[in-house]
C-alpha cells in the first residue's frame, strides 16, 4: 500500500478527534476524543517508521502510548474527583477563566 493512504487515514482520524473535542460537552467523551487524536499520531509515526525502515518511530509510538496512559489516569482521576464533589460534569459550567 502506498504510505500516503495511511497518512491520509491518520489525518482523517485526527480531524475527527479534533471535531469531537470541540463538539462534546462531557469531560469523559472529550478525553476519549483526545485518545483518538493521539492514536492518529501513532499511526502516522509507524507509517513513517515503515517508510524509512527505521525503528525509532516505533519507540516514539510506544512512548506516546505511555504518555497517553498517564494522561488518561490523571484525567479520569479528575473526573472521579469532580463527581465525588457533585460538580456538574459539563465543561461549559467550568467558567472560572472568564476574563
Amino acid at each position, binding site marked *: 500500500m*502506498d504510505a500516503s493512504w495511511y497518512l491520509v487515514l491518520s489525518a482523517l482520524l485526527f480531524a475527527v*478527534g*479534533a*471535531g469531537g473535542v470541540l463538539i462534546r460537552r462531557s469531560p469523559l467523551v472529550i478525553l476519549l476524543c483526545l485518545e483518538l487524536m493521539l492514536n492518529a499520531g501513532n499511526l502516522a509515526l509507524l507509517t513513517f517508521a515503515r517508510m524509512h525502515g527505521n*525503528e525509532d518511530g516505533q519507540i516514539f*509510538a510506544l*512512548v506516546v*502510548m505511555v504518555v497517553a*496512559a498517564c494522561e488518561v489516569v490523571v484525567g479520569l482521576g479528575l473526573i472521579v474527583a469532580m463527581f465525588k464533589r457533585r460538580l456538574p460534569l459539563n465543561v461549559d459550567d467550568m467558567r472560572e477563566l472568564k476574563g
Partner: protein
Amino acid sequence: MEEVAFFAGAIGALGGAIAVIALRNPFYSVLALVVHLVSLAGLFLILHAEFVAAAQVVVYAGAVMVLYVFVAAYVGQVEEPIWEPIPGQRWLAPLLAVALFVELSIAVLGTALESIDSEGPTVQLGFGEPSSIGTLMLEKFLVVFEASSMLLLVAAVGAIVLAGRRQEASGRGAEGEKAAEGA
C-alpha cells in the same frame, strides 16, 4: 491481500472514531473506542510493528480502556444539554475539522514525499520484533525509557492523590473534633 487488510482496518478505525463522537451514551462511546483501537492494532501489524500492535491491544485496549469503562460506569449518564452557549461553535467545529483534514491531506499528497512508492524499502528480518525494540530501548533510548517510567510513577501517585484525598481529610477532621471534645 494487503489492500483488503488495510481497508478492513481503516473502516473499523474510522467507524469507531465516528461512533465515539456521535453516540450520546458515554459507555457506548468507550466501547466504540475499543473497536477503534483494535482496528488500529491491525493496521499496525500491516506496518510491520508487531510489538507496538501487541502493546496497543494489551495496554491500550486492555488496561486503559478498562479504566475508562470503570469510570464510565461509576459516573453514569451525563446529560448533555441541547442548547449551545458558545455562538458559532456548532458549525465552526466541523468546519475547522474538515479544514484541518484538507490541509493535512494537501500536505501529505501535494508535497513530493520521496520514497513514498508502492512498496517501501525491504526491511530486515526482525524489524518491529520485541527483541529489536528492546535493544533500542536499552541502548539508544535508555534515557527516554527511564523518563517514561518516572512519568508513569508520577501519574500513579497523582491519580491516587486526586481521587482519594477528600475522604482522608474529612476523616482526620472528624477525629480531631472528637479528640478535642473528649479532652
